[in-house]
Structure formats: structure tokens, C-alpha cells
């Protein structure tokens, strides 16, 4: 009972499960299995699937959304959400198109895209942290607000005629089949994984998502961290907007519609608890891959878009529900912070 300096004979092990067991039981392993299954199925179902250029084209199905999903994952882990990301993409694209009318060159267009993203993120962040409003309500509001502005500026028209140098972001290739978008996404994903899993900042996100009060009582500056996450999500939406606008070569006010739900689907499918406090970047990346593979595979089979969305929805529910049904939800443990 004594709390003396040394209590002989009582050594608590650091960990009980070895690294192999942890990998085997992780949510990410399940996602890898699903991805392999879909990949195998697709390669048998269509002779065109395994062509490198076809696969390269397929990555455009998810890269822009997945960039947003990276920041969204951090936000959801910290217990917040941003539903306005699709609208930020539209507003940033509109601002770039508007500047284009006054002869803005590529560097300025990029600066405008990033700046609008950051500004929108700041609006969301200030409303949540300064006014103490729930982020789901704030971002439902700003979702309509940002897209509304895009519609007012554009009406029924579209901005066209982006410079050739600007087109590289969405259409250029860094090497062989690897597009700029794919390389950028891979780089960002690595950066996010490092920040979330290897830094103090990342650790604090898990603490805030699990118990914001205890986090604040532990000296974590909760509101400042939340603000940073909304800024980051805005910035990523700006980057996604540059890529998407560049790839399409035009801006319409409906650009990026529904992106928020696809990004959130990736986050949830990737094993991030929607209630906050757990998840990994690897999971989100795998979920993005799975969604890309499914969309591409079904496209090759000439399955209409509506059926695809049914399939993606079914997949999301299946992947989340099945382990719970068969394993009682215990084996595929979502580790709180790895």
C-alpha cells in the first residue's frame, strides 16, 4: 500500500500486444483486404483495368476530394466537422475565375485560390471558437453562404480561358503515369501522417476529440487548436479548388458540389470515429483508394453514376457494420491514437 520510491516486484509492461498483433487487428488491415479484393475483382471483370494509364486516370476520381479528406480527418478526430468544404472549393474557383477576367497570371491565381480557402476557414473557425457555436451548424450555414456568393458572381455563366501554365496543376504529369495531383496528394498524405501521428500537435488532437474539458484542464489551448484546424481545412479546400479548376479548365458555380459528403465518407470509411478521438491518416488514404477503385471499376463496366453512389453507400455501411456484427466490434479495435 505504500507509495515508496521503489515498489519491487511490480513492473507494469509498456505494451501487451506486439507490433505484429497490433497491425493484424487494425482497421487499416481490413481496409487493405477490401482494397485488394476490389482490385482483384476489377482486374478480372474488365480487361482494361490493369492498364497503367487507365489506372492513372482513375486516380483523378479521388485525389482532390482526398486532399480535403486529410484535413477533414484531423478536424473530425478533434471532434469537429466542416460541411462547407465543397462550397469553399466553389468560392475559391469563382474568385480565381473573376481575377482571370482582369488578366491575373498563374501565380496570382494560385495565391487567390489559397487565400480564399484560408479566409473561408477563418470565418468558420472564428464562428466556432469565438462564438462557441457547434461546427455542424456553422458550416451548414457557411456552406450556403459561400456557394451563394459564387452563384451571385457567376449566375448562369462560366469562367473559361485559364492560362496554359495553370492547366498543369490538374493535367500535368510529374513522371511517366504519375500526375501532379497524385504526387501532391501522396506528399500531403505523408505530411499529414507525420503531423498527426508523430508530433505533440497530433497527440493533442486526440485528447481534444476524446475529452475537450480534460484537454483544456491539461493545459492544451483547445480553441486555438480548433482554429488552426479550420484554417487548415480551408487551405486544403483552396488547394483542391486550384487542382479541380485547372483540370476542368473552367469555373461554374456548381463546381465541387457534394465534395463535403465524399470527403466525410472517406474519413469515416477510413476508420475515424465520427464522434472524434480516434483514426489514422493511413486509413483515410486507403479509404480514398477504395472509393477510387470502386468508381473506376464500375465505370469500366458501364454502370451508371446513380448505381455507383448506391454501391459506395452500401460499401460504407457494410465495412463499418460487418465487423461489429461478426466480431462484436472488439477485434477490429480502432486504436485511439495510432
Amino acid at each position, binding site marked *: 500500500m505504500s507509495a515508496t520510491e521503489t515498489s519491487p516486484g511490480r513492473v507494469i509492461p509498456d505494451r501487451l500486444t506486439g507490433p505484429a498483433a497490433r497491425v493484424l487487428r487494425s482497421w487499416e488491415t481490413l481496409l487493405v483486404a477490401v482494397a485488394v479484393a476490389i482490385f482483384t475483382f476489377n482486374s478480372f471483370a474488365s480487361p482494361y483495368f490493369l492498364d497503367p494509364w487507365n489506372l492513372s486516370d482513375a486516380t483523378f476520381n479521388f485525389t482532390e476530394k482526398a486532399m480535403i479528406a486529410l484535413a477533414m480527418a484531423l478536424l473530425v478526430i478533434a471532434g469537429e466537422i466542416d460541411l462547407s468544404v465543397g462550397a469553399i472549393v466553389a468560392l475559391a474557383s469563382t474568385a480565381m475565375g473573376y481575377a482571370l477576367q482582369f488578366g491575373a497570371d498563374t501565380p496570382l491565381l494560385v495565391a487567390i485560390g489559397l487565400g480564399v480557402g484560408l479566409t473561408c476557414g477563418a470565418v468558420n473557425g472564428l464562428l466556432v471558437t469565438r462564438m462557441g457555436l457547434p461546427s455542424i451548424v456553422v458550416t451548414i450555414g457557411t456552406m450556403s453562404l459561400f456557394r451563394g456568393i459564387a452563384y451571385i458572381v457567376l449566375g448562369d455563366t462560366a469562367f473559361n480561358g485559364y492560362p496554359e501554365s495553370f492547366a498543369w496543376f490538374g493535367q500535368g504529369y510529374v513522371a511517366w503515369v504519375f500526375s501532379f495531383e497524385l504526387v501532391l496528394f501522396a506528399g500531403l498524405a505523408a505530411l499529414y501522417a507525420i503531423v498527426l501521428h508523430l508530433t505533440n500537435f497530433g497527440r493533442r488532437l486526440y485528447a481534444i476529440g476524446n475529452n475537450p474539458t480534460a484537454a483544456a484542464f491539461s493545459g*492544451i489551448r483547445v480553441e486555438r487548436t480548433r482554429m488552426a484546424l479550420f484554417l487548415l481545412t480551408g487551405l486544403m479546400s483552396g488547394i483542391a479548388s486550384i487542382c479541380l479548376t485547372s483540370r476542368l479548365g473552367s469555373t461554374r458555380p456548381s463546381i465541387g458540389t457534394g465534395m463535403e459528403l465524399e470527403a466525410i465518407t472517406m474519413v469515416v470509411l477510413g476508420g475515424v470515429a465520427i464522434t472524434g478521438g480516434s483514426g489514422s491518416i493511413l486509413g483515410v488514404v486507403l479509404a480514398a483508394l477504395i472509393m477510387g477503385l470502386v468508381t473506376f471499376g464500375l465505370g469500366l463496366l458501364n454502370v451508371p453514376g446513380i448505381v455507383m453512389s448506391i454501391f459506395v453507400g452500401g460499401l460504407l455501411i457494410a465495412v463499418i457494420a460487418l465487423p461489429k456484427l461478426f466480431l462484436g466490434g472488439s477485434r477490429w479495435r480502432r486504436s485511439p491514437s495510432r
Partner: protein
Amino acid sequence: MLSTHPGIAALRAAPVPHDVRPVLSLRGIAKSFPGVKALQGVDLDLFPGQVTALIGENGAGKSTLVKILTGVNQPDAGTISLEGRPLRFATAQEAARAGVTAIHQETVLFDDLTVAENIFLGHAPRGRFGLIDWGRMRREARAILAHVGAPFDPDTVLRDLGIASKHLVAIARALSIEARVVIMDEPTAALSQKEIEELYDLVERLKAEGKAILFISHKFDEIFRIADRYTVFRDGQMVDAGLIADVSEKRLVEMMVGRTLHSIFPERAPRIGKEVLRVEGYCHPTEFEAIGFTLREGEILGFYGLVGAGRSEFMQALFGATRPSGGRCRIDGQERAIRSPSDAIAAGIVYVPEDRGLQGAVRAMPIFQNMTLPSLHRTSRAGFLRAAEEFALARRYAARLDLRAASLDQPLGLLSGGNQQKVIIGKWLATRPRVIILDEPTKGIDVGSKAAVHEFMAELAAEGLSVIMVSSEIPEILGMSDRVIVMREGRMAGEFAREGLTAETLVRAAAGIGEARE
């Protein structure tokens, strides 16, 4: 003391009838929770038309008894009989149907419903097709409200009412279910003097209607004002029961705190050094005012008071979790502005909260990550986590605190309350503080862990750490403190040296009885 209350002479004039039979009788009630024997062989009788005061310290088993009476918890042993018939309250609904109702400290009513809906929730008058008969409900609500002297309309939304009015609604609800037994759990805790007087009137009226009333209170003046009988609990056992007319206040206090301190506290030879903390004029618009004291190296300063005296609120302001409206704080003679917990941690003040689940533990996170949460800057390099350093720190404090866990990677929420508390104390020690504030450090933890926490506290003080201990347990306050500050209603009600300090003095100062001697 008694003569200060004009009502008492009148009460004494009408002697308590001795020939009535109890409405509700409890015999040999026992209840255990993991690690705690909350009640052991308790007897209680409640008589129609009489008020029985239930007296005891925090943790004496009063709340458990209320939960058993209202069907929230079931006793492990013993019998409950209503008018001689034995019965079991398997659920809260059954207890309500049998006519037992409770009015709590924080009344369990629904803020967004109207007064009438609150009164009749669960037993609303029904009309055709089983739909609620709103007209009848309003009429009946209005009649009951008039009966209890409530000046508001049944259609008022509860949120718009003050705490006293909410009590009236709770009482009206009790009347609407034709309660025979009314339990009032510290009903005056949040009321003004005028509202308390109105409550007394109401209690008299309930008595006149033949209700049996169980009145739980820490305030001796009101016990002598309205109670007919008393029952004293201590450590889950019934110590004594009888007629208020036959007992003195002094005797009740003695029975409540007990003659002996039955827990064993560590022997200490305090080596008290120079002043570390000086607090001046801390104020808050609603919770506390004019709090000032000093704390020295190696000293354990106890803060005693009743629930709601403002102790935790003050400590959280000192820790920067809430903003005081005024006040200054010096550490080692240097003035420090504390606007957030991170300021406090930087200044060397840390706080182990009373509400461990909400404010202390990140339950889903592993033990080692909880331990390092406030000192990540120590275990990391350039903002990058270093797992080896984190485990080393966690191992060090786990060993020092004699932690019991399967592994340091285990989620904190899986540990027992006592071991969770050890982790939280460990996480603060790792920040190398000057002052540690422990708010009810042994609340809700088992006896073994309690002793470990006490010994550890003594050890920390011996190493020169300054300790502030908020506690509502008198033995703990007397057993651990070098000096005690008593708070009452947000103010400092007295400061006492350990030498010669008695439980009676503390209780008197906390309840505002007589003169608190400095």
C-alpha cells in the same frame, strides 16, 4: 442558539405524538458498491405528519439511502415495509407508485417543459383515445399550485423559473402523485433566506396533511427549526435516532463526526519552509469573494466546507480554468497573471479535479499518453513525440504511485477509480509543480487506494511540494492538513491551525453556527 429561532417555541408547545405508527419502515438495509460498503444494517422509521432529519457527513450513506427509498438502487439485504406490508422497489416507477417521492438538491425536472407538464409527467390525465386531457391537466395543476402557494401559471416554461420556484414545482409534483413519503435532499442549499422561510411554511403544510417527510440537511439551525425526529448516519451505519426535543446540537455534531478518527493517516513531521504562494482578494461575481491566504513550502493546507461553499470554483479560478473577476496571485514572491490552465502550469500550479471523468481523465487514451499530456514538451524533441521518453516517464510515476494496471498502453478508463486518480496525480507531478491542488482526492475511490493517496500526499509535502487539499471529509482534513481554511457561502469562514483543531469547530464554522474562532 435555539432561542434565536422564534418558531421553535411554538413547535415545542405541540408535543410530538408518540402513538402513531410509521408509514415507512426500513430494517437492516445493507448496500455495497465495488470497494465500498455504503450502508450496513440501517434502520429508519418515517412517521405520518412528522419531519425526520437525516444527519451525516458526506459519504455517510445518505444519498445511497435516498436511492434505495426511491427505487434507483436495490438493497443487498434488509426489508422495506409500507404501512406494515413488506415490499420491494424494483424500479423508480414502483417507488413513485407506492407514494415515495424525492425533491433533490438539483431538482430532476425538465427545463423545456411547462410547469403543468412537469407536474404530471408520466401520470397525465387522459381523455378520449388515450390522449392527454390538456384542459383537465391545467386545471388540476392550477389547483395544486394554488395549494402550495406558487404564484406562477401552469403554462410557464420551467426554464423561466428560479430555483425556489422549481422546488415548488417539485413539491407540487409530489402532491399530484399523492405521495405519502416526501424526501427533501438539502432543499435549502440554493435558496435565499426568504425562499427558505416559504419552504418551511410548505413543510408545515405537508405535515398537516399527514405526509411523512425525510429532511436531509447539513444546517443545524434548520434541523432544529422544522424537524421532529432525527437519525444520524456515520460511515454507512445508523448511529442514533430519536426525538429532536431530547437532543442538543452539540450532541448531534459529536455523533455525526464520531469520537475517533478510524482511518489511519500517515505520521508526518512537517518541515515547513518559505512562502510559495500568496493569494489576495480573489473574487467571482457569483461563486466566491475576498479569498486570500498564503501557502508555504512543504505545507498541506486543507479547505473544508459544505457542498456548494465555492471551494472547487475558487480552485478552478486559481488554476485558470475559469476567470475570476479580481484577485492577485504570487508565486515565490513574483506576481503571475493566470488566464488559462497553461499559464497556471507554467507558473507551477496544477489541479487534480474533483470530477475525474469530465475534467481529469481522457478515458479512451492509454495510460502513458494521459501521463505525458501536460508535459509533452519535456518528452518530445522539436515538437516530435518520442515514445521511449514517454514510456520512461510513465514508468517512473507508475512505480512511484504504486499503480496497478495490465500495461501502460491500457486505456485509462479501464482502471479502477483509485488507479485513475494515481495516473492523474502522476501526470501533474511530471510537470514538476510548486503547488498541487487536490480537489476531493479520495472521493469515490476504495479504501486501499485512499491510504495510498494519503501517504503519497504526505511524501510530496515532505519533499517540499506545497499541497492544497479540498475535502468534505472531516477525518481526511484533520488527518492530513497542517492548516485548515473553512469556506462558507463563497467566503472564508475561518482559518485554523492543526494544533487543537476539532471536528466540532470545523462543522460549526462550515455551517455558520456560533462564532468561528480564529
